[in-house]
């Protein structure tokens, strides 16, 4: 019975993630526009864009290899697999045993590597610049992510996200300085990984400032639709990850009846809405930083994550 519930929860979870990701992007754009006293496009505009792009034939460069046309699908698939592993409204989904933080980080890194390779495939200058910058950021972001994972693993005794969320929702860990520091680090990471404003401007089409957009500049038609869907899904995965680790309240425990899912769903929507609102306000109130400041910004994320580990060692009595 539990297995059936787990499978049903997984299907509903995937449907929810796919449906909600463009809505989240639309809502953030709408909020940012409202904060700037503009009307802004309707919230479902990203969905309309995706539908329009999906009907169009992609335009390929003459020298594009098979990698170029395979990359959008592969990147989307990797992101979707990561989305399947991050619990939203219920724990104990069928994928729970595999929902390891290292696996999630690896899948997201895989999507990024595929897109970076595709950016260099056609041989245009902008694609190459975008790829090289994306990889530069990634090389600073990965150690910070690993340190955050290490903190959580020390706390929970394992890297399984489902187990960590289940442990933290019980509240037995209380409030920890380490968790607060890890939260700061992962918030900085989420901004970098999703190319949000202090790092990269998702709405920018000025070539010199683009990072992610420069990398996917050559894409069009249904390929672009897949890439945009993957980017939206990635943002939702990161927000869901932060919500699942640092605010697991209300999430339905493993094996709970579907009625508990409704509560979990309400809590999840609330958490994502709060995070999305915070992101909009933050992005509106801050300017983009220079590309060469970004390693410094990420270095600070690494330092915070390292402090989190240090304090955890101390409070567990290693010193």
């Amino acid at each position, binding site marked *: 019975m539990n297995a059936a519930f787990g499978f049903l929860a997984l299907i509903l979870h995937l449907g929810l993630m796919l449906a909600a990701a463009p809505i989240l992007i639309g809502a953030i754009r709408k909020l940012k526009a409202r904060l700037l006293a503009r009307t802004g496009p309707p919230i479902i505009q990203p969905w309309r864009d995706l539908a329009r792009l999906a009907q169009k034939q992609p335009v390929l460069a003459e020298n594009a290899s098979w990698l170029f046309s395979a990359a959008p699908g592969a990147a989307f698939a990797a992101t979707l697999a990561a989305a399947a592993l991050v619990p939203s409204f219920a724990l104990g989904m069928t994928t729970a045993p595999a929902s390891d933080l290292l696996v999630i980080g690896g899948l997201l890194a895989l999507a990024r590597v595929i897109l970076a390779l595709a950016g260099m495939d056609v041989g245009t200058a902008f694609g190459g610049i975008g790829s090289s910058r994306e990889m530069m950021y990634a090389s600073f972001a990965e150690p910070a992510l690993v340190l955050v994972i290490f903190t959580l693993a020390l706390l929970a005794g394992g890297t399984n996200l489902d187990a960590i969320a289940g442990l933290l929702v019980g509240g037995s860990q209380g409030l920890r300085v380490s968790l607060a520091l890890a939260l700061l680090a992962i918030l900085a990471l989420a901004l970098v990984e999703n190319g949000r404003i202090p790092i990269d401007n998702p709405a920018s089409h000025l070539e010199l400032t683009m990072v992610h957009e420069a990398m996917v500049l050559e894409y069009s038609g249904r390929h672009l639709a897949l890439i945009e869907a993957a980017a939206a899904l990635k943002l939702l995965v990161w927000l869901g990850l932060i919500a699942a680790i640092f605010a697991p309240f209300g999430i339905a425990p493993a094996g709970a009846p579907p009625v508990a899912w409704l509560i979990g769903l309400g809590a999840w929507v609330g958490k994502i809405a709060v995070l999305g609102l915070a992101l909009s306000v933050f992005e509106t109130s801050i300017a983009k930083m220079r590309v060469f400041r970004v390693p410094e910004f990420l270095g600070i994320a690494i*330092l915070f994550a390292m402090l989190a580990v*240090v304090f955890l060692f101390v409070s567990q009595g290693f010193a």
Partner: protein
Amino acid sequence: MGHLAYDAAHLFGGAVLALSFVLLYQRRLTAVINAYALQALVLAIAAAWQGWAQGAPHLFLTAAITLGVKAIAIPLGMHSFVRRLGMNRAVESALGVFPSMALGVGLVALSIMVVLPVTAQSHMLTREDLALALSVVLMGMLMMISRRTALTQVIGFMSMENGLILAAVSVEGMPLVVELSVAVLVLLAFAVFGVFFFRIRDQFDSLHLDHLDRVDGGPR
């Protein structure tokens, strides 16, 4: 006193420490002053929380002093200094941002290694709070060392003093006299530094401390 009271106190201590890092990260004078005000605000909250958790009403007074003087009055005064002196808005630093942050993490590790062995018999969380407070003190010193202009050094000094107050409120049974005198001391120091600023500027047309090297009485 429940587990939560300790945890929250600890978390406020962690927030004060994180704000010390924020202080080191800033590149603009106004942002440094605002970060300092925020640190004092969090410290005031921490003091009030400790007053409630320890059932020690005099800590509320400490919290009020911290809030009124250090989170509101001093930052306002600082902002007016910056305006009236027409200071350069950039923070001049002898050390890059990233090296000073890295040094900061080293100092945190150092204070943990110093505090934990010497307080082996006291309560675990008190020891961690003391380690946090000592880190804040050391980070204030680091700020005084690594920044060039007088105003940022004063802020480093007061951030150091925030660490002392943090230590004072997290240990139970600290008498009020100490805290009051420390608060008054800071106010005095602030006034002295204020006079000092104007003196330096009148003398040298700048707040750059390098100018002081020439008047050490040594051979020219």
